[in-house]
């Protein structure tokens, strides 16, 4: 059912835009794209929109999956993919590239490099927590604090670069920071990262459940906590790096979607991991469709839409939870 929802969201994204397509046009255009020769105007539009929608889907799924994994790793339902500064590293890299170079690929590469550099630094500094068996309650304060400090260091660098940037570059930098899918196309690497991480997650889902429930005592149930923590860290760092290099730091998907899924389906990671991936993807596709059509032909950065939807949804959920 969730897969159906995802496909529907992508089809909607293809149909809606500054030039709306009727359903018959859409079907004809889809057929042309499938055959690989988009020649009519509609088909070219669909081709463009489909690429962007797929990219949005992968990015959304990646962020949501990273969120679920980060929350399990830190045993904290309020954690999100950006809390450990991985995205901050990406932002420093991307802004530096925006400041110094012009080619689009340098931005993505620099973002990815920045994210990976911070991940390695974080891993080295917080090795102790990732090894496990340090705190009886299963918390990872060293990892969390190190991450938060690195994140604030990165945001200081971001502020510095924004303040010295020339006027004509500023707009692109701000758009990157809010998170923007315009000009993004379907790519294989993020897709592979997402599939790989999801495969690992589903395989380890039972172990993740046991760790989420019992913290360090999960060892007594046969879980290799140290290995599981390391792998979860690796996966969520890779996912975050992949998502932010694709589309900038889009907020709230990694926090809201896991929460909504937990609310709907319960905290069992065997369901949660695949469901959050699909819902996250569909959510971002729809948010991006809104972002590029609501004041068309002007385009909004999608991060604004996710935050505008995310904040009230989150508050509503929080209140309903308190009432029960």
């Amino acid at each position: 059912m969730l897969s159906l929802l995802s496909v529907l969201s992508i089809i909607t994204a293809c149909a809606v835009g500054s030039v709306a397509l009727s359903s018959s046009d859409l079907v004809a255009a889809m057929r042309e794209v499938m055959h690989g020769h988009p020649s009519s105007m509609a088909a070219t539009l669909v081709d463009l929109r489909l690429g962007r929608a797929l990219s949005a889907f992968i990015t959304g799924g990646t962020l949501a999956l990273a969120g679920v994994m980060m929350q399990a790793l830190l045993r904290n339902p309020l954690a999100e993919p950006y809390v450990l500064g991985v995205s901050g590293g990406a932002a420093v890299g991307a802004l530096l590239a925006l400041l110094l170079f012009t080619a689009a690929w340098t931005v993505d590469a620099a973002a990815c490099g920045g994210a990976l550099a911070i991940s390695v630094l974080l891993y080295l500094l917080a090795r102790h927590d990732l090894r496990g068996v340090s705190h009886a309650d299963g918390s990872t304060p060293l990892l969390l604090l190190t991450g938060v400090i690195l994140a604030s260091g990165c945001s200081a660098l971001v502020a510095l670069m924004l303040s010295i940037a020339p006027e004509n570059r500023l707009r692109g930098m701000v758009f990157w920071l809010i998170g923007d899918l315009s000009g993004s196309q379907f790519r294989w690497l993020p897709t592979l990262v997402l599939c790989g991480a999801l495969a690992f997650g589903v395989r380890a889902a039972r172990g993740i459940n046991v760790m989420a429930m019992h913290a360090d005592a999960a060892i007594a149930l046969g879980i290799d906590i140290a290995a599981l923590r390391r792998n979860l860290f690796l996966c969520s760092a890779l996912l975050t790096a992949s998502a932010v290099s694709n589309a900038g730091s889009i907020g709230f998907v990694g926090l809201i979607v896991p929460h909504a899924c937990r609310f709907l389906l319960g905290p069992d990671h065997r369901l949660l991991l695949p469901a959050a991936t699909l819902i996250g993807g569909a959510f971002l596709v729809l948010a991006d469709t809104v972002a590029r059509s609501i004041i068309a032909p002007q385009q909004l950065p999608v991060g604004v839409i996710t935050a505008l939807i995310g904040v009230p949804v989150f508050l509503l959920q929080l209140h309903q939870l308190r009432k029960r």
Partner: protein
Amino acid sequence: MRTVDLQLHVGGRVLVDALNWRVNPGECWCVIGRNGAGKTTLLRTLAGLRKADGGKVLLQERAIGDWPLAALARERAFLPQGRSDAFGYCVTETVLSARHPYHEDAYWESEEDLAAAQDALQAMDVAALAERDVRSLSGGERQRVAIAALLAQDTPLLLLDEPTSALDIGHQVSVMALLAGLCRDRNKSVVMVSHDLNLAHRVATHALLLMGDGRCHAGPIEDVMQPALLGACLGHPIDVVRHGDRTIYLAKD
């Protein structure tokens, strides 16, 4: 299970020095000692959650660190002292998770596991809470759910850190009786930490006294749970009163 020259250090202090100790099937041990005497540290070391600072712990003549984790999880269960529930799992899910070591390959639990979980919930008198979110339970209810998970794990060796700390008096007695029954009728071994000398004396067959300075006394309760020795161990004089066929321990004024 036995320990060979086991040493435990915490923060530079020697808590247990050269402990040679054997727990046989059918024995119910109670570990007694002051706060900070190393009871929890000992239990975590026996469970394999922390490394020994010297000597070793052998389970079926195999060092505890050499066991594959999953196989070890089918041999010993561990109840930690406190619990922190970050996520809203329901009671049944929590107890089912204790069946994890029995089917690592399957994605979902089997009917058999569900039956084991339900039996355990019934035994701990928490079957009515099966659908509740663990975060909404009271301290005592949560403790009983945790013990139910331990029962569902169904291991020959059970290590419990203060199993009755949050329970009301009725459940204290029934949990202790259940543990004693497991040792007596099903030949399991139990090692528990308890501060309640009277309950311990009623159900335990043996006691291990940690003196806090490295020395230990291990043996059957009639030998070890003597007022003078207990007084030295706990750092407060202890009196004994006979009530019918029961022995009551009192702290002297």
